[in-house]
C-alpha cells in the first residue's frame, strides 16, 4: 500500500512538474527579481539615482506644483530609503473604482505621474520605463493579465501546483534522512541532478513552502471567497470594512479646499510614534467633503499594517483610525512575509538567494526528467522529449536572457523615444520568443549557446550602464550608491555563472551522459 502511495505521488510529482515546471520557474524568477524591484528601478531610471533624501520634502509644495486642487484624485508616495524620489499620481478625471481588490480597477491610463527630487523640489523627466516595480513585479503575480483577475488565478493555480509538488516531493524522496546533506558531485549527471534537486528541495523546504503558501494567502478572498461571502452576504466592502476598519465618504459637489498636508503627515507620524508616512491619498480634492488618507510605512515590522489615519481635508482634523483586527493580522503577517516591505537588508538578500535556489530546484527537476527520458529512449530523441526540452530551455535560460534584453533595451533607447516603455517590453518578449525558436532549431547546442548569450548580455548591460550614465562600479561603490552597485554586481555575477555553466556543458557534450545506476528507481517512474 505504501509502495502504491509512493508510486502515485511520483506520478503526480512527475507530471505536474513536467507540465508546469517552466511556468513555475518563470514565477520564481520574477519573484526573485521583485525582491530588489526598487533597486532595479534605480538602475533603470538613472534620473532617480539620488542619495537617500535627508532634506525635508514638502507634500504641500508637491500639491501646488502638480495642481492638486485642480485634480479629481491626488496621491503622493513620499521619498523613502529605497526610492529617494517623491512620486505623485494625479487623475484629472473621476476614477471609477470597482471590483474586489482595493485599487485594482484603477485605470492608470488617465493618471499623470510626476517624479520630484525631494531636496530641490525640481520635477524629474519621465523615466520612460516600467522598471522592476512596473514590469517584473506584476509579471510575478498577475502576468500583466488584468482582465477579470485572470492573471492572479493562473498564478494561483501554479502556486497550488507548487504546493502539491513540494508535498508529493517529500513522499517521493526515498531516503530523505539517510541522504540528508548528500551531493555526489563525482557521479554521472543524472545522479548529480537528482541529488541537487533533493538537496535544494529538502534543505530549502521551509522557505519554498512558506513563500508559496504565503503567496496564495495574499489572495485568499479571491481564491476562497465562500467564507467571507457566507458571513457578509456577498458584500466584499462590508467584509473589508469590518476586518480593516476602512473609512470612505462621498463627495457632496460643493467646493472646498485642502488644509496643510504636511501638518496632517506630522500629526499622523506623531500618533504612530514609530514609522513614517509612506502614502498619502487625497480623496475628492476640490470638494467640501474631501478627506485625506495617510498610510504608515511597512518598514518597521513584518505584518502589512499601515495604521491608516483619515483626516478631514478642509480642517486637517482626524476623522477616523483604521486598524487591522486580530484575525486579519494573521493574514497580514503571512502576506508581509511574502511582500518583504519591511526594512531588513539581511533578510532581503537571503530571500533573493533562496529565491534563486527555488529557480535551481525547478530547473534541476526538469533537467532530471529530460535526462531520465533520454535514458528510456536510449539516447535517441523522441519528439516529445524535443518539445519538452525546447520548452525547458526557453523557460530557464530563455527567460534569463529576455530579462537581460529588457535591461539592455532600457540603456540603449534614448529617453525621448515615443512609447519607450512599451519597446522595452517588446524587447523582453521578442527575445524570449526567439529563445524558444532557437531551442527547437538547435536542440543539441541551445543550452550552452544561450548560456554564452546570457554571459555576453549581462556584461553588455553592465557596460551600457557605465557608458550611458557614467556610474561604473568603482564610482557607485565609493559613493555608496548601493542599488546601482548591487544590480551591476548581480549582472557580472550572472555573467560569470553563465560562463562557468557554458564551459561545464562543453565538457560533457550537451549533458547527454546517461545515468545507469541500477537503484535509480525514480527514473523508472518517470
Amino acid at each position: 500500500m505504501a509502495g502504491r502511495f509512493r508510486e502515485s505521488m511520483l506520478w503526480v510529482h512527475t507530471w505536474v512538474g513536467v507540465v508546469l515546471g517552466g511556468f513555475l520557474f518563470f514565477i520564481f524568477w520574477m519573484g526573485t527579481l521583485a525582491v530588489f524591484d526598487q533597486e532595479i528601478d534605480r538602475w533603470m531610471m538613472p534620473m532617480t539615482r539620488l542619495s537617500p533624501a535627508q532634506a525635508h520634502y514638502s507634500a504641500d509644495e508637491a500639491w501646488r506644483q502638480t495642481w492638486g486642487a485642480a485634480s479629481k484624485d491626488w496621491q503622493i508616495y513620499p521619498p523613502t530609503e529605497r526610492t529617494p524620489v517623491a512620486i505623485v499620481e494625479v487623475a484629472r478625471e473621476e476614477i471609477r473604482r470597482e471590483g474586489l481588490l482595493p485599487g485594482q480597477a484603477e485605470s492608470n491610463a488617465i493618471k499623470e505621474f510626476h517624479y520630484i527630487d525631494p531636496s530641490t523640489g525640481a520635477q524629474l523627466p519621465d523615466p520612460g520605463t516600467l522598471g522592476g516595480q512596473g514590469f517584473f513585479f506584476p509579471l510575478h503575480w498577475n502576468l500583466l493579465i488584468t482582465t477579470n483577475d485572470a492573471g492572479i488565478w493562473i498564478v494561483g493555480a501554479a502556486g497550488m501546483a507548487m504546493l502539491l509538488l513540494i508535498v508529493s516531493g517529500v513522499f517521493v524522496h526515498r531516503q530523505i534522512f539517510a541522504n540528508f546533506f548528500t551531493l555526489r558531485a563525482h557521479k554521472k549527471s543524472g545522479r548529480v541532478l537528482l541529488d541537487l534537486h533533493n538537496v535544494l528541495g529538502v534543505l530549502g523546504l521551509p522557505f519554498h513552502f512558506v513563500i508559496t503558501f504565503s503567496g496564495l494567502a495574499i489572495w485568499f478572498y479571491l481564491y476562497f471567497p465562500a467564507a467571507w461571502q457566507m458571513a457578509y452576504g456577498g458584500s466584499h466592502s462590508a467584509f473589508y470594512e469590518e476586518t480593516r476598519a476602512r473609512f470612505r465618504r462621498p463627495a457632496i459637489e460643493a467646493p472646498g479646499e485642502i488644509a496643510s498636508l504636511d501638518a496632517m503627515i506630522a500629526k499622523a507620524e506623531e500618533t504612530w510614534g514609530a514609522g513614517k508616512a509612506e502614502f498619502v491619498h487625497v480623496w475628492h480634492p476640490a470638494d467640501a467633503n474631501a478627506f485625506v488618507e495617510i498610510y504608515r510605512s511597512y518598514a518597521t515590522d513584518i505584518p502589512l499594517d499601515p495604521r491608516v489615519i483619515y483626516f478631514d481635508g478642509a480642517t486637517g482634523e482626524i476623522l477616523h483610525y483604521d486598524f487591522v483586527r486580530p484575525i486579519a493580522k494573521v493574514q497580514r503577517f503571512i502576506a508581509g512575509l511574502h511582500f518583504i516591505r519591511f526594512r531588513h537588508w539581511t533578510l532581503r538578500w537571503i530571500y533573493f538567494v533562496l529565491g534563486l535556489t527555488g529557480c535551481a530546484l525547478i530547473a534541476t527537476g526538469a533537467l532530471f526528467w529530460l535526462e531520465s527520458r533520454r535514458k528510456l529512449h536510449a539516447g535517441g530523441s523522441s519528439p516529445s522529449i524535443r518539445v519538452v526540452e525546447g520548452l525547458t530551455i526557453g523557460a530557464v535560460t530563455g527567460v534569463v536572457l529576455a530579462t537581460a534584453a529588457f535591461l539592455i533595451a532600457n540603456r540603449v533607447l534614448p529617453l525621448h523615444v515615443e512609447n519607450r516603455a512599451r519597446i522595452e517590453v517588446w524587447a523582453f518578449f521578442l527575445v524570449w520568443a526567439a529563445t524558444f525558436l532557437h531551442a527547437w532549431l538547435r536542440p543539441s547546442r541551445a543550452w550552452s549557446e544561450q548560456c554564452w548569450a546570457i554571459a555576453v548580455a549581462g556584461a553588455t548591460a553592465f557596460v551600457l550602464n557605465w557608458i550611458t550614465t557614467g556610474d561604473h562600479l568603482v564610482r557607485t561603490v565609493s559613493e555608496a550608491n548601493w542599488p546601482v552597485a548591487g544590480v551591476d554586481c548581480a549582472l557580472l555575477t550572472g555573467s560569470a555563472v553563465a560562463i562557468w555553466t557554458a564551459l561545464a556543458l562543453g565538457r560533457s557534450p550537451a549533458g547527454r551522459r546517461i545515468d545507469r545506476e541500477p537503484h535509480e528507481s525514480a527514473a523508472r517512474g518517470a
Partner: protein
Amino acid sequence: MRDLALFLVGFAATYAGFVLLALAMSRHWRGVLGREGAPATPRSGAALALRAMAVALLGGCLWLVVHADGPSFGATLWVVLLTLGALATVATLTWRPAWVRPLARMLHGARTDVPQARELDEHGA
C-alpha cells in the same frame, strides 16, 4: 555593520551546527574520514555529543537572532539561516571535506580513550 555581524555569527552557528549533525551520520563520517581506516560510524557517545552540540548551536542561534531582532524578524531570520547553513554544509562535504577532517580526527582520536563505548558501535548513528 551590526546587521552584517549578526548574519555572520548566525550563519556560522547554523553552519557549524549542521556540520556536526552531518558528522554524526555514518555516511558523512565515512565521507570525511574515509581513507584513514576509521570505523564506519562515530561511536554512539561521540554521535550523541555531536548532536547535542549541534542542537545547542542551532538553538543558541535562535536565541541570538530573536534577542537581537525581535520575535518576528528573528524567527524568520533563523529559519532562512537554517537553510543557508545546511546548504553550506552540503557544499563543504561535497567539495571541501578536508575542512572538516581535523574535527572528525579529533573525535576519532578521543574514541580510543573511552573503550567502554566500543560495544555500542553497532548502534551508533
